[in-house]
Every structure is written in structure tokens, then in C-alpha cells.
């Protein structure tokens, strides 16, 4: 069995497609894609920040000057529209970014803001909110001054409750919460993609090339043969996931120290090798789960191409538990610790934050290990069937 494992490993290392998915994807392609995505988003956001916002104000302007207040904001530029042009038409034409219709006097003034809510980087709404708050505050001060209040008294009236914030979360937890949503998703999907090609190659591929029959003639039981293949696919999945983690850590450190981002530097200093080891240990049973599923499908397929078709579908199966685990508000508890793959994703998130409960971690290892064992057992039974091997 060990000889078979070593042979498969040697063979796979000579396959460029495997090297692509197992090594290049986590080390270069994924970080590059993430960097390009982040860079593009930052560039668009920065460009939007620098763009002037064109606005028009319509309605009653007596008593206070909305236009004057808006003009005090940086990056706002008034446009005068034809009186018969509706705000909707003006927005659709792109002549303006916002149209504000004002009516009435404070304290009974009403503003109607027309804007495009679908624009992700739109600043118009925020600026109008700020202007509204400034105008309301100055009106309040005027009213309070008429009552004979001093500036300090006005401040107390305007802000009767002062909220002071003291977060118990350190930088590690804050950053961990931010990356914890996406880290398990990326790691497990890279593990899955690292498993797919080797699984097809050593299952359906062997059937197609006629070498599977030769293997079945070796003095090995079919169970030993399948175990060796599951072990190999789990290895490639694990190597891909481990390289992804190492790559992300390396690139993050390079970015944090290269760009001098102190918060990230402090967060990274609180990470220890043992944290990374625990994350990898948690990923391990997930890799066996993926390997078992992929080998069962691969052995069932008649050819390489047929296996590829099935894998497209199989690739979607782990999405739901991973997606559920990455939703905001989902926290680790007993129920989530028992849901396969979701529990692994949540454990990675908690480990990234440094807030893992050891009881849950052990429970997750036991649960994921048990599921992996059951799936491997089912796959072995499945692949021992002549109807599967000789379809």
C-alpha cells in the first residue's frame, strides 16, 4: 500500500496540471487574484472619492441656506437643471448625482433626496446626511441660545448622553474576525480544487488508461488500494490548503511591513506557529472528506471526461456548509460544532481570532474525523463493487 502511495505521488509530481492546482494556485494565482481584486476596489473607491458630486437643490430655501451648507462640503458642485427636467431623468442622464427637494421650515422641514442607491461607492447620501445634521444642530443652538443658555449648557442639551467605547477585542481578534469569514472559505475551496484533478487522474484516468486492472492484480486488497488513493488525494488537498495558509500569511506580512500597516503588524505578532498548526490540523479531516467523495465519484466514472462532468456538480456540495459558516452572526456553539464542514470553517475562524474554545475544538476534531472515517469506509465499500469498477 505504501509502495502504491509513493508511486502515485511520484507520478502526480510529474503532472503539470496537478502542480498548477496544488502549488501555483495557492502560492501565486490566488494571492495575485486577491491582490488584483483588492487593488482594483481600492482604485475605484479612491477615484470615486476624488470625483466631484454634482447636485441640484430645489424647493423653498427661505430661512436657511441648504446650498451654502452643501457648498461648505468638499467635492460638491452645484448644477442648474432645466425646470421641466424631473430628478429621475436628470439622474438617469447622469447630469447630476443627487437632487435634493426641500420644503417647509425647521422644525417642520422635509427634504426629499433623489439618488442612485445601487452605486456602491456613492458619497452623496452621506454628505447630505452630514449637512442635514449640521443645519439641525445650528438650528438647535439658535433655539437654545434664545432661551439664554451658555455654550456649555447647549452642548449638554444637544448631547445629553456621552457614549464612551472600550472594546475588549485586541487587534488579533478584530483582524481575525475580518479574515475569519473568508480564510476557511479560501482554504477549503483550495483544498477541494487541489483534490479534484488528482482524484480524476488516479481513478477514472487509470480506468481509461487501463492501468487500474493492473493495480487490481497486485497482491493488495481493493480496500488497501482505495485507502492508498484516498490518502494520496487527501495529501494533495492538504498540501494545497497548507500552501494557501502559508502564502496568505507570507503575503499579509509582506504587505503589513512593506506598507507599514501597524494594526496588521500587531495582529500578526500575536499569531504563533502553534495557531497555524492547529488550523492545519483542523483542515486535515476536511481533506479526507473531500478525498473520499472525489474518489467515490472518480471510480464511478467511466472516463476522465465523465469524471470531470461529475466533479463540476460535486464541487458545489461543500459550498452550502461553508457559506452558512461564513454568514455574519454565526457563532460557534454545540449545534454548529456538529455540522460537518461548517464546524471546520467556524473552528478556523475562531482559531484565527484566537478565541477558540478547546472543548469545541476537540469536539470538532472528533466529529470531522468520524465523518471522514465513515466516508472513507463508504468509498472503500463502493469501490469494491464490480459494477462500479467495471461500468
Amino acid at each position, binding site marked *: 500500500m505504501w*509502495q*502504491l502511495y*509513493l*508511486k502515485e505521488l*511520484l*507520478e502526480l509530481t*510529474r*503532472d503539470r496540471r496537478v502542480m498548477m492546482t496544488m502549488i501555483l494556485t495557492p502560492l501565486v494565482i490566488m494571492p495575485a487574484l486577491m491582490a488584483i481584486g483588492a487593488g482594483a476596489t481600492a482604485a475605484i473607491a479612491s477615484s470615486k472619492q476624488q470625483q466631484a458630486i454634482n447636485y441640484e437643490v430645489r424647493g423653498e430655501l427661505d430661512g436657511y441656506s441648504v446650498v451654502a451648507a452643501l457648498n461648505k462640503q468638499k467635492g460638491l458642485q452645484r448644477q442648474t437643471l432645466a425646470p421641466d427636467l424631473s430628478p429621475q431623468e436628470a439622474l438617469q442622464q447622469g447630469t447630476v448625482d443627487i437632487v435634493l427637494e426641500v420644503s417647509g421650515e425647521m422644525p417642520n422641514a422635509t427634504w426629499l433626496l433623489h439618488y442612485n442607491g445601487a452605486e456602491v461607492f456613492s458619497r452623496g447620501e452621506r454628505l447630505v446626511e452630514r449637512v442635514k445634521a449640521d443645519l439641525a444642530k445650528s438650528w438647535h443652538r439658535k433655539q437654545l441660545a434664545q432661551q439664554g443658555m451658555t455654550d456649555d449648557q447647549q452642548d449638554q442639551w444637544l448631547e445629553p448622553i456621552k457614549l464612551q467605547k472600550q472594546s475588549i477585542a485586541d487587534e488579533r481578534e478584530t483582524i481575525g474576525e475580518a479574515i475569519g469569514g473568508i480564510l476557511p472559505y479560501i482554504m477549503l475551496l483550495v483544498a477541494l480544487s487541489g483534490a479534484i484533478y488528482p482524484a480524476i487522474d488516479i481513478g477514472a484516468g487509470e480506468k481509461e*488508461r*487501463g*492501468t487500474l*486492472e*493492473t493495480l*487490481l*492484480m*497486485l*497482491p*493488495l*486488497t481493493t480496500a488497501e488500494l482505495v485507502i492508498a488513493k484516498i490518502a494520496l488525494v487527501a495529501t494533495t488537498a492538504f498540501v494545497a490548503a497548507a500552501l494557501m495558509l502559508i502564502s496568505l500569511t507570507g503575503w499579509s506580512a509582506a504587505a503589513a511591513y512593506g506598507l507599514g500597516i501597524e494594526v496588521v503588524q500587531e495582529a500578526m505578532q500575536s499569531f504563533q506557529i502553534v495557531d497555524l498548526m492547529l488550523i492545519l490540523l483542523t483542515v486535515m479531516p476536511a481533506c479526507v472528506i473531500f478525498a473520499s467523495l472525489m474518489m467515490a465519484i472518480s471510480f464511478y466514472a467511466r472516463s476522465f471526461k465523465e469524471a470531470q462532468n461529475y466533479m463540476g456538480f460535486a464541487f458545489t456540495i461543500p459550498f452550502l456548509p461553508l457559506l452558512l459558516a461564513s454568514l455574519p452572526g454565526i457563532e460557534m456553539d454545540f449545534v454548529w460544532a456538529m455540522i460537518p464542514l461548517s464546524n471546520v470553517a467556524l473552528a478556523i475562524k475562531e482559531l484565527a481570532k484566537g478565541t477558540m474554545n478547546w472543548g469545541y475544538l476537540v469536539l470538532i476534531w472528533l466529529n470531522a474525523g468520524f465523518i471522514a472515517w465513515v466516508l472513507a469506509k463508504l468509498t472503500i465499500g463502493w469501490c469494491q463493487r*464490480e*459494477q462500479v469498477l*467495471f461500468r
Partner: protein
Amino acid sequence: MMRVENLSKRFKVDKKANVPKDRLDGKWFQALSNISFDAKSGEVIGLLGANGAGKTTTLRLLSGILKADSGNIETDLASAEGDSRDYRRQLGFLSGSKGLYERLTVRENLNFFARSYGLTSEQTNQQIDKLSQQLNLSDFIDRKVIELSTGMRQRAAIGRALVHDPQLVIFDEPTTGLDIVATEQVLSCIEQQKQAGKTVLFATHHMDEVQLLCDRILVIHQGQRNFFGTEAEFLSQYQADSLVAALRGCLQLGVAK
């Protein structure tokens, strides 16, 4: 020595499967029925039959890949029943697909199969050296299989099948697609195995090869044994003056009385 008794095998097939209706029993297709024969040490048995007759199923059963529904397969030392690992250790199989890993070198292929059959590192190296000389592999033994010509691959595949020095060797249409030089090398190898006292089972469609090498002939037709005996008995049985004519008669007339 090898003894096969009443070997039967059936497969579950779906409705759309293109199989002969007369061998269909509900969802089950009777691939083989009560096949029996024996082969002595140093004897070459020629396995003949039309496509779909059951030759591949017979060979898969003999190689231990498939399990028979009933019947026995035995050699001097082991049985294919139950845990058939001891049986498979005595078996070498050369199929049309060669069974070589293309991304590995010939040496790596031979090394993997030898070690998997339980040879020590030293025994493996000795066997590889021996086969390298016998089969003239030395010129390309450290090249990847994917880079080799068809003839080279076939020699390497023979080496793969013989690397653990098996007592029973099965050749499944080993000369299909080969040029005359490569064909002669394969036939010469079969002759060498016979001389070395191995039991050889040889499936082929080429009657000249049967005439050249085989001591006895086994004809399978529609999953049943139609004939088993020497060439002379085969010709006499079907009153033919050539193997082709005898085979044609055998396949048309059915089971010999």
C-alpha cells in the same frame, strides 16, 4: 499447474445494454457458464473466441480482478477464492493496454511493481537487471514510458508482467497493433516462458500464433466452453484442414459432442 472448474459469472445490466438476449435472465447477463480446463507447467493454452464470447471475463476471473459466482481456480500453491493475494503473487498478466505508467520511467515502473509484489530492494534490482538483458531494455530503461515507441512499450510491459517471476503468465492479445519485429519479440518471450516451465494462457485472434505456440486450445463461445484439447483434436473434431476452418466450424456448430 492450474486447474479451473465450473467457472460461472453473471453481471447485472441495465435495460439499454446491448447484450445477447438469449443470455439474459431478467437484469442479469450470463457472461460465463461452467468453464473448466486445466493447464500444466510448461504448457501454453491458447484461448480463442469471437468478440463478446467471454474471453475478457475469463481472463479477469483468472487474474483475480473479478470474483466468480461459482467454480474454482487453483494453482499448485494457492486458490483465487477468498483472500487471493497468494494466488495473485504467482500471476503475471500482459494486456493490450500494457498497464504501464506513462509519466514514470521504465525502471520506476518495474521497481514499483516488483516492490508491490513483495520483492526486496536487492531482489528488485537483480530482476530489473535480468529483464533488462533478456528484453533489451537497457537503451531506454531510464526514459519515461510516454517517450517510447509501441515496440519499446511492449517490451517494457512484458518486463512489468514478469518482474516478480510469476509461475502463471496470461497474455491477452499481446500482439494486437504491433509491427512484425515487436510481434516476434512477444512470441519469443512466450516461448521463453514455456521453456522456463511456466504455465501460459494466451488469448489471441491470430491462428498462426496459436499454431506456433499453443499445446492446447480452449474455445469459448457465448459464455460456454465449446472446445478444449490439442490442435490435432480440434482439426479432427471439426473435420477441418486448418485452424481457421476448425474455429469457424466450432463457432457455428456450438458445443462439441
